């Protein structure tokens, strides 16, 4: 006689908890796991996996340390008794005024003074990840759609969709015109969303683009702004890499265009920024929503209670960022170093027979391996990606994680390692391509 085993019903979790929208099972993250298990180290593990899938800026770290050493008052609450106490108690979601002012002025500097920023419109969040999610919660309801040009940062699938219930409808961009956003692509994405009965709430662009590593041209920005105005929807411009443009005159912020139009129709525009990339401080968790819409500013401010920046960090960075001498020097040198790195990697790849998209910004290059694909399919792309990870021991990001509509493109980060490590990576890739050319690499035949 069988004995029935009564299963106690386990206590349930939410749909959000059970969904896969956090995306952490995609190849983008699988590569990270491989790196975690076998990380490269110059001395201790020279044959380990080199992490080229993390867009982190470590090239100007010495400048930060130098500042801190030479400006000790900036790093202490001081002998003034009330300094620490008031700071420790400060949890106002408006944020420290001194810090907001410093952020606004830093954002102006990064844009070469070509646009003005009002500290009253700066809403602080613990990182740009939170800023993007916050804006999505504010601008859209569950089931609504945001249009996002492809290829895009893989994290958007999670940040914009997971807890918000909002959909991303891709604006397809193609290599034939260097992946620039066209009016046709915008209209087509919009119509596609409407055909699925989704309400389109806005367009989200990343400028400079991740993963392309290129700025959006002024006339394209104007076109996008006109488009969103015609459709009466929002425009979110994620300008997190604005300080990482190699030549300052090549970046046009949406803020500049709005200023030139006297802020007409600006209430549909919102900028996301952060110190994680330009200042290399991702651990500090400092992001901002800058909105030209009063209601959005008010709402974002109140909602930022879920993601406030530590008052200690605000205090520290307020002094750092309001030191104009430091910030000017930092911005200039940082750009230079990134540009050099970019040239190194692009030249190195060229010597290995690999072309990249012509880029001018960011912490990565957009590499084209499509000539080497067995077939122009996602599967072939993932095969190469796997080979590169397992044989060449490099973790790079496949274009399919970025929803790229063409197979064979990869994002390769170059700023999160020393110059020596970059050389090692390039050498490995060179050797790999040589072996392949000589027919020694079976997995790619």
């Amino acid at each position, binding site marked *: 006689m069988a004995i029935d085993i009564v299963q106690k019903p386990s206590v349930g*979790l939410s749909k959000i908890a059970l969904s896969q929208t956090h995306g952490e099972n995609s190849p983008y993250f699988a590569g990270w796991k491989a790196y975690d298990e076998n990380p490269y180290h110059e001395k201790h593990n020279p044959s380990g996996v080199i992490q080229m899938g*993390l867009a982190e800026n*470590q090239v100007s770290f010495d400048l930060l340390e130098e500042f801190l050493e030479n400006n000790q008052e900036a790093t202490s609450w001081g002998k003034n008794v009330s300094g620490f106490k008031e700071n420790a108690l400060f949890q106002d979601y408006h944020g420290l005024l001194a810090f907001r002012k410093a952020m606004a002025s830093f954002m102006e500097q990064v844009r070469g003074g070509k646009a003005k920023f009002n500290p009253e419109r700066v809403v602080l969040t613990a990182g740009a990840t939170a800023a993007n999610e916050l804006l999505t919660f504010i*601008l859209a309801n569950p089931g609504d759609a945001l249009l996002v040009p492809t290829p895009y940062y893989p994290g958007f699938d999670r*940040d914009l969709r997971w807890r918000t219930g909002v959909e991303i409808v891709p604006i397809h961009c193609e290599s034939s015109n260097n992946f620039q956003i066209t009016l046709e692509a915008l209209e087509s994405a919009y119509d596609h969303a409407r055909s699925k009965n989704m309400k389109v709430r806005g367009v989200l662009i990343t400028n400079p683009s991740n993963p392309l590593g290129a700025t959006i041209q002024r006339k394209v920005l104007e076109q996008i702004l006109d488009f969103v105005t015609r459709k009466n929807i929002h425009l979110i411009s994620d300008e997190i890499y604005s300080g990482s443009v190699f030549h300052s005159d090549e970046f046009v912020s949406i803020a500049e265009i709005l200023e030139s139009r006297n802020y007409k129709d600006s209430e549909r525009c919102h900028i996301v920024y952060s110190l994680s990339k330009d200042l290399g401080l991702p651990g*500090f968790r400092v992001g901002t929503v800058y909105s030209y819409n009063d209601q959005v500013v008010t*709402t974002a401010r109140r909602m930022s209670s879920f993601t406030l920046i530590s008052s200690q960090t605000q205090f*520290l960075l307020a002094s750092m960022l309001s030191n104009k001498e430091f910030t000017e020097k930092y911005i200039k040198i940082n750009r230079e170093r990134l540009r050099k790195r970019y040239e190194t990697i692009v030249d190195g790849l060229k010597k290995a027979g690999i072309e990249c998209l012509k880029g001018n910004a960011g912490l990565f290059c957009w590499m084209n391996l499509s000539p080497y694909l067995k077939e122009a399919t996602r599967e072939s792309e993932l095969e190469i990606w796997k080979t590169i990870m397992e044989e060449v021991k490099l973790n790079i990001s496949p274009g399919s994680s970025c929803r790229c509509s063409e197979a064979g493109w990869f994002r390769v980060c170059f700023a999160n390692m020393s110059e020596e490590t970059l050389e090692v990576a390039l050498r490995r890739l060179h050797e790999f391509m040589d072996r392949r050319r000589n027919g020694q690499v079976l997995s790619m035949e």
Partner: protein
Amino acid sequence: MTQTGPRRLRNSALDDDSQPQPQPQPSSSTTGMRLIVPLQGIVQGRGGLILGSVIPCAMFYFLQFYLKRRRSPPASNPPSPGNLTDLSRSASRSNLLLPRGRPHVSSRVSSIAKANDSPYYIGLDKATSDPYDRLCNPGGVVQLGLAENRLTLDLIENWITNNLNESILGGGLSVSGIVTYQPHDGMPELKLAMAGLMSQVVGKTVTFNPSQIVLTSGATPAIEILCFALADQGNTFLIPAPYYPGFDRDMKWRTGVELIPVHCRSSDNFTLSIPVLEQAFNQARKRGQKVKGILLSNPSNPVGNLMTRETLLSLLDFAREKNIHIISDEIFSGSTFGDEEFVSMAEIIDSEDADKDRVHIVYGLSKDLSLPGFRVGVIYSYNENVLTVARKMTRFSSVSAPTQRLVTSMLSDTTFIKSYTERNRERLRTMYDLFVDGLKELGIGCTKSSGGLYCWCDMSGLIRPYNEKGELDLWDKLLNVGKINITPGSSCHCIEPGWFRCCFTTLDENDIPVVMERIRLVVEACKSPA
């Protein structure tokens, strides 16, 4: 002056404001009626009431219809009701002639962005904009509405001076090791130190496991993350009332979760009754609402009660029977000062073998360690699936790395933490006694509480009429005449009118006579015949 507490956005600072402020608006039909009635009167002389109202009505509706057709673009974006409310300051005809409205925002926005009309927030704003200071602003508003502990910050400050050379970076000038991306759910060293603190704070009756800790930027996101993980939009949580006003915002705004208050009464000293809980659960079920869990605050806010071992066991049984979760917000567990011992849910769970999966504890440094600005919160769960999800969600609410480093140093100094916790309790006790005695002399009684940074005062004898309006009248008098901000029970969803929460930890002993005098004046005014 540093601000403490939420403030409304000051719109004067924003330039070029041609945009109307969002406010709840009269609908266009009301305006329509304003047109029809005079017309009706005009026409009434000829054709009578029917023609006098039908014709203008018809004209008006045709006009509306025509204008609406002209206004909306043929395709895609029909303005939703929410949009119309946001658009108009007054639903005048001129508005109907606008070619295009502002871009749509989510349906959450209008309730979130509107001016704070809750006394809880109004009072906080007022006290922040005109704060009392014994020396510099003796006529200002005394802040007794914010549960902020200023009694022992000097101890923390001394520790920083002695151990960190006042360095913000936590000793030493180097930022190396803290600038790069950290695990979103917190550095392992801090988790370890936090486990130690939590154990110390509950009286060493429990050992907390660092691997069950998820660190968040404050207890606010900790609660929200648990709601996202445990409940779908539209699901509900049962919550003993009166409760912390912030929960209405923290738990509902973005998650879409609902709260069902389980009313506690003065006859029970505002302790939770299981039969009442059962009743609330059943009523929810009848209404078709899906209850996913219970949210407890222990020590409770605003009353300051500690839950007994028996109640906690009964709650666990209840949750088991209904197969729901328990979130135990123990953020004040280190701020106890009574004779009762504090029993953490963790202690109860430790002694039970089964069913740990449904219990989740929230903690943080904002109250016990007086560091609300640093944004350090904790989710402690026994459910591995919940921990996995929570870890992923902390990417939206991580603790800043320099803060992690500083706090790790401090919490690892267990000698300091032990002496700090003891001194904190002593000072809380002293201040509580002084404050409650002062109120007693005025004829105002308080529930006997053993934890938290506040006392729960019975001013029901002073309100007229004996209802929410009477309570708010008294609140208003205390705020605007007495210049004292305290929190009315209605903001806390208290079912009995006349109760108020008074936080006494922003005061020092010399301020108490001032506060009592101001209360006395208002009390006298209430007692004198109207």
